[in-house]
């Protein structure tokens, strides 16, 4: 029973480190870091810190409002909080620009009342996008913390007549203090490897991230040594942060699926207006981009050529494969050291990982024949940190509770997974699978390097449409991609929630 996690751990380490080392060795020497690279490093860290900070600060009032108000549609709102995070980046940027862009509804409204227009390009645009993706995630984490405050403690505070600031300090701050560092860490790491977003909304070379520097070193300078070196800096930053949060996080607020039935608490009777404003603003901010994307491209979706639908089918297949693979690894690695190892994938540059795999596979067989498989493996590796974060805490407590029983009745590893682990972990597995499937669906990733026309995926088709001036069809393909990503997420989640 011990051997399986060790083998899985070894495989993941190999999957992450071997490609990096292969690239490094192939390159022999890379050129040293230029001032531009240092600027990229600086900007990457600054925007990640700010993105994480703003996401956390904004998430507090929204989570607080959702925790203590019950209103019609509340559970729908909470479910939809999962949507921005899994939205393919290119689709999200389209939606954000339709709302906040020069020509977006915000500026149209400002113009109507004669106010000067606002431009989001620059650091603010990067932050806007990152907050859009990650604020809902943090909201969910805090929300769970809020709901988990024991009712005895609430009653105690009530009977002591604690109000306002005093109640915040006694009841809410300790919970936030527990959850926020871990939430901050997660968002920080996610934003570290952000690439496409930072570029389109960043407004210029000021907003260059490490990932772009890697891309440049790889594609333009073909300086693989430098690409690998930059990738290692990024990995070290992210890996270090990830490990700190793994070890620092006491209780894991990320543990439960999106599905947990939150019960409204009687935390407060005042603050109705603030809560109403927080929830309304959050719904508008998070919902409008979706409305705009669907409104823009939804009509043309059934006019898309059949090749786009085939590509969609291929993307679904990749998503299924990646999800199964990722879950197999995650179930084997769902323990503390496993999570540390699994975190290695969190910020490895897909380009470097892809070229490494390419160099490793090429002596054996033609990598292009295996493009889809490689894509699946890479998606699984890149999703693994999130999935472990979700599964690990519950998997460990299941193991603690039932392993003796399992051993006396002689359940082998396979029987354990089948009869105990999967049924007991159903909800978090559903959530994690949904996340992986949706992220894999929207991932363009290394398919660009390994792309073959027979194997184009939906995101690649989207880029091809854009690359051949067919922007309207690209919008329709974006709606299709959005539908598939959210659909995949919803189906997996539903499986997790449905009773066996």
């Amino acid at each position: 029973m011990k051997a399986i996690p060790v083998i899985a751990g070894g495989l993941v380490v190999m999957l992450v480190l071997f490609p990096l080392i292969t690239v490094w060795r192939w390159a022999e020497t890379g050129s040293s870091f230029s001032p531009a690279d240092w600027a990229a490093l600086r900007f990457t860290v600054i925007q990640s810190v700010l993105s994480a900070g703003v996401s956390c600060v904004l998430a507090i009032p929204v989570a607080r409002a959702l925790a203590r108000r019950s209103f019609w549609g509340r559970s729908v709102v909470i479910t939809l909080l999962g949507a921005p995070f899994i939205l393919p980046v290119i689709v999200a940027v389209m939606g954000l620009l339709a709302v906040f862009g020069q020509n977006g509804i915000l500026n149209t409204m400002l113009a109507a009342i004669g106010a000067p227009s606002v431009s989001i390009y620059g650091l603010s645009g990067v932050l806007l996008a990152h907050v859009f993706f990650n604020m809902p995630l943090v909201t969910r984490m805090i929300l769970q913390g809020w709901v988990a405050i024991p009712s005895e403690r609430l009653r105690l505070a009530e009977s002591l007549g604690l109000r306002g600031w005093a109640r915040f300090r006694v009841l809410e701050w300790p919970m936030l203090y527990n959850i926020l560092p871990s939430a901050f860490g997660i968002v920080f790491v996610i934003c570290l490897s952000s690439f496409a977003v930072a570029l389109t909304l960043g407004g210029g070379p000021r907003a260059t991230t490490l990932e772009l520097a890697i891309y440049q070193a790889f594609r333009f300078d073909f300086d693989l040594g430098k690409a690998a070196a930059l990738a290692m800096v990024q990995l070290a930053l992210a890996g270090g942060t990830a490990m700190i949060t793994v070890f620092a996080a006491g209780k894991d607020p990320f543990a439960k699926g999106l599905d947990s039935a939150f019960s409204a608490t009687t935390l407060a009777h005042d603050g109705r207006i603030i809560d109403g404003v927080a929830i309304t603003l959050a719904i508008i901010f998070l919902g409008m981009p979706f409305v705009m994307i669907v409104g823009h491209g939804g009509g043309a979706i059934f006019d898309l050529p059949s090749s786009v639908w085939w590509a969609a089918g291929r993307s679904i297949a990749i998503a299924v494969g990646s999800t199964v693979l990722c879950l197999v690894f995650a179930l084997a690695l769902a323990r503390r050291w496993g999570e540390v190892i699994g975190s290695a994938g969190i910020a490895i540059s897909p380009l470097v990982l892809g070229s490494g795999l390419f160099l490793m596979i090429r002596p054996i067989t033609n990598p292009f024949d295996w493009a889809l498989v490689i894509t699946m493996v890479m998606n699984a590796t890149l999703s693994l940190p999130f999935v472990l974060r979700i599964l690990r805490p519950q998997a460990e407590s299941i193991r603690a509770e039932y392993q003796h029983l399992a051993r006396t009745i002689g359940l082998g590893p396979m029987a354990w997974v089948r009869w105990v682990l999967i049924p007991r972990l159903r909800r978090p597995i559903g959530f994690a699978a949904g996340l992986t499937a949706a992220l894999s669906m929207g991932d363009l990733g290394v398919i660009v390097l390994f792309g073959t026309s027979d194997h184009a995926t939906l995101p690649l088709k989207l880029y091809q449409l854009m690359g051949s001036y067919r922007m309207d069809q690209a919008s329709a393909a974006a709606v299709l991609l959005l539908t598939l990503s959210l659909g995949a997420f919803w189906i997996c989640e539903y499986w997790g929630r449905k009773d066996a």
Partner: protein
Amino acid sequence: MLSFESVKMGFDGFDLSVADMALDPNIYAVLGPSGAGKSTFLSVIAGFLRLKSGFIRWNTTDMTKSSPADRPVGMVFQDHNLFPHLTLYRNLALALTHRRRITDDQDRAIRSAMDRVGLGGLETRKPAAISGGQQSRAALARVLLQNRPITILDEPFAALGPALKNEMLDLVSELAHERGNTVLMVTHDPNDARRIAPKSILVADHMVHPPVETKDLLSSPPPSFAEYLGQVPNS
């Protein structure tokens, strides 16, 4: 015959030695102060803990290195005896097979074990839908199905009310006599021992002592145990 030879175990700075002894089929209460190592002793028999040294034998077979499932031991835990997501029927079936399909023979065995412990008709219930007493019965049914000559119970009925507990103790006793099993039961209640266990094993002072008559142990306990029982040691 369950025999111990120079058994020593230790983990996290906690040491426990087992006196050399051989246990005939009978019911033994395992008694001793809290934290003395009663559960540890059972874990060693069940195979959850490794020994530092020594041997444990069943008749002539050395089981020191065997895995829990390969030992002639069935165990009832304090809690987590049943998987909460599975029906009682499936929970019991897992003691016989890990396949989904259940043969007619297995089905008969499961149903008769459930009837024997008084759970007939509750096959499709999940653990959460039955009472605490019924959960204990289900755990005993599982041990019955495993059909092992040694049964160990780790404070199995601590959560039950007095009447229910006595009912369960009597059931354990009946089953043990029906099958001629060797039963070891950890309990913190001397009355449990008096009710069903002719002999008791004292665990105290880092030592598992050889079995003695239960009534003798309880009437003249050694000092460390007496303190636990709340008796003034008779000097």
